[in-house]
């Protein structure tokens, strides 16, 4: 569809903005152009849309050189959605959209045909601006203006749509709507979309291919997964970036890390000081939110939590919506549910094993409640599934900065240690076949102090977790046994 070969252009011949670009865009593709400010994105777009001349190289559009197109013919192939637009005079929305038909009108008098009218009506409907058609363009909000301009571009019935920062003035839902619509058109109408993005995450979600520009050169031209690598983006944009996959799509997402947070890196130690034990619950109230990976009732999976509560429920506890009940309970006890990770146990929380372990530069604080959870010997009381049987709740707090992989590693280690403890305990007390399906585990890290990225510190962490969980589990089992017995 569009082929760019050895393109050099912009400013002067000696100091061009674009230095030798070669790439190709296929029909029906959503092609994203990324790059920091001043990398030449807009210059490239202007050259490809025929506004700016270039020094050397070639741009071929549908097998014909771009310069060989007459302006009017070009406008029937390419439409451009500008970043912003100001009107000197206030045309109505319909007049504005109708201008998009300019390139399709023939003859000196350029009469308005029924087809023109139909296309204008259709695109106004598609972009949701029909109800504004008699309102002056200038009176619309930024987002509405953007949609009117999109309608104008679409009225050109282009084969390629160029977008410069299409989502600039749009709120979240219109961003999604616009890009979804675009994607749909590429599928249904074989429209080709070439767009500049500042928002790397949107680019990742919607583009088939991304072209990353760095100082007027192509850094990479590939699939989003390949382009949006942490190291690459950090190097090109020269800023701290974290990346993670999208929660529901196989697309990478990037997160900037504010620098004032990086400065708050004074080490902080979570230990007994922050632990509080009451009759009904045991809670750890950390001074800062901790990065948490867990399987609790509220705040399952992962997130940042400041308070951790393990609540002892009666063995008769039965509730259809434990999550809602838990939120009510937490609120009633003065915890903030959105910052609190809640768990339930049928074990007396006073029997919890609590220990602090310290290694080189790194320490862990471990809290375990465990119990066999024997059935109550009262036939009249129905026991719920949730509170029957043995359960072990393991909390591991790490005072250090853990990468993603260390979280997983530590969880695995903790689980292994717990099983070993159970096994050894079973051998000691001749209890066999201990079920673990009601157990839950929580790993939370301060994400401050020692950065645990490399082999040695990782190993040291593993040993602390393994030993701590093993010891605490055994201790907790004995505590609750002693009590029950």
């Amino acid at each position: 569809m569009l082929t760019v070969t050895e393109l050099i252009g912009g400013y002067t011949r000696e100091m061009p903005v674009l230095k030798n670009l070669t790439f190709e865009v296929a029909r029906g593709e959503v092609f994203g152009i990324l790059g920091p400010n001043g990398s030449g994105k807009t210059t490239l777009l202007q050259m490809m849309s025929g506004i700016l001349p270039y020094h050397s190289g070639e741009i071929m559009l549908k097998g014909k050189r771009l310069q060989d197109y007459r302006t009017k013919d070009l406008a029937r192939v390419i439409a451009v959605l500008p970043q912003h637009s100001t009107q000197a005079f206030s045309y109505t929305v319909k007049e504005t959209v109708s201008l998009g038909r300019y390139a399709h009108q023939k003859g000196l008098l350029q009469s308005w045909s029924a087809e023109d009218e139909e296309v204008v009506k259709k695109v106004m409907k598609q972009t949701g601006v029909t109800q504004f058609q008699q309102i002056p363009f200038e009176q619309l909000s930024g987002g509405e203006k953007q949609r009117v301009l999109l309608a104008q571009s679409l009225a050109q019935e282009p084969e390629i749509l160029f977008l410069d920062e299409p989502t600039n003035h749009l709120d979240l839902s219109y961003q999604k709507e616009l890009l979804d619509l675009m994607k749909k058109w590429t599928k249904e109408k074989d429209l080709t979309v070439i767009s500049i993005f500042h928002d790397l995450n949107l680019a990742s979600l919607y583009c088939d291919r991304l072209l990353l520009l760095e100082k007027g050169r192509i850094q990479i031209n590939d699939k989003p997964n390949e382009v949006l690598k942490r190291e690459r983006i950090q190097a090109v944009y020269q800023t701290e970036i974290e990346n993670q996959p999208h929660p529901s799509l196989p697309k990478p997402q990037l997160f900037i890390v504010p620098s004032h947070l990086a400065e708050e890196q004074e080490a902080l130690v979570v230990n007994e000081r922050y632990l509080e034990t009451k009759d009904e619950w045991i809670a750890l109230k950390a001074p800062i939110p901790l990065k948490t990976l867990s399987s609790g009732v509220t705040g399952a999976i992962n997130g940042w939590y400041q308070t951790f509560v393990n609540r002892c429920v009666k063995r008769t506890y039965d509730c259809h919506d434990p999550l809602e009940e838990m939120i009510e309970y937490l609120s009633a006890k003065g915890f903030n549910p959105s910052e609190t990770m809640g768990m339930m146990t049928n074990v007396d929380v006073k029997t919890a094993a609590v220990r602090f372990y310290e290694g080189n530069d790194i320490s862990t604080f471990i809290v375990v409640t465990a119990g066999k959870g024997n059935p109550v010997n009262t036939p009249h009381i129905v026991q719920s599934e949730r509170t029957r049987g043995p359960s072990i709740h393991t909390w591991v707090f790490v005072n250090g900065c853990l990468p993603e992989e260390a979280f997983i590693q530590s969880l695995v280690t903790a689980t292994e240690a717990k099983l070993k403890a159970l096994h050894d305990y079973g051998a000691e007390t001749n209890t066999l076949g201990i079920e673990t399906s009601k157990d839950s585990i929580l790993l939370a890290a301060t994400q401050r102090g020692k950065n645990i990225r490399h082999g040695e510190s990782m190993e040291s962490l593993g040993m602390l977790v393994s030993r701590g969980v093993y010891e605490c589990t055994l201790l907790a089992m004995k505590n609750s046994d002693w009590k029950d017995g």
Partner: protein
Amino acid sequence: MGSSKREKILQNNRQLAYILAFAFLAVSMIVGISVGSVSVSVSELFRIIGKEVFHLPLSTEANMMFSNIVMKIRLPRVVLAGLVGASLAISGAAFQGLLRNPLADPYTLGVSSGASVGAVITLFFGFSLPGIGLFTLPLLSVLFSFLTIFSVLLFAQKVDRSMKVETIILTGVIFSSFLGAFISLMIAMTGEELRQIIGWLLGSVSMRGWSYVGIILPFFIVGAVILMLNARELNALSFGEDRAQHLGVSVKQRKLLVLIAGSLLTGAAVAVSGTIGFVGLVIPHFTRRLIGPDHKHLLPLSMIIGGGFLILADLVSRIIISPAELPIGVITALIGAPVFAMILLKRRRTERG
């Protein structure tokens, strides 16, 4: 509120707008011809026009004196005023659209200064080219206005190859100031021609006769046709040059066409009548308020209303201190400036409200 409702009606009913504009022009012409030191009744007027222009077999009783007044003095004067007003108004509308500036007028680009220099030189040196005599002034004037616009465009292109409108406006301002200084210099050095020069600079359509109509008419037709054929391009250009190009407009050619056509109109108008201010600024503004910014209607309607307006202004200029005449430029400024101020004020209010 009432006026904005009226505007809505005109915007939605373009036919009505045209009918009203033509009616305004017709009434202005009739009043312009019949009113004066010797008043000609309307029925007399129709009879004379019918006989002299359309050669209808009407009774030949028409008074020869009336016939002469109408055909030799009033009618050419009214037609000339109409053509000058129409030229200034349509080129003003086009320049405002092209330069994306509602404050632009036909004189923004220095065209009138150029034309004035031509005229003032003629008057100052008492030139009279052999063969054309009296027409030396309008001819030199048109010539100078062309020289000016081409110098402005050439210079603008030297400064900025893509000839952005900002560059063109700036260049126009520079040329205007320079030529203005030149005119002032000649005025300062002149002796007995002073009154004549000032009188010409303030503008007048009196005592020109049909020959001046002949001078402006071809320029007017060519210029107006070119401009009206570029109405849609002017609409697109109001969104900015890049946007217009993306919509398929060959911006550079169209810009040149509009500039040249507008200058043709302005140059010719200044050549036959001197510098008459405010018509090119106020009339397009007023028309835009009535029917909206679409150049397809804005250009012809501005033209019609501008013609009518200048005919009335000329009428006022010749009766207000009769038997003496005021320069028409004084009248347009006296009427135009307050009207313009009112339009601005009203626009501010509606924008806030």
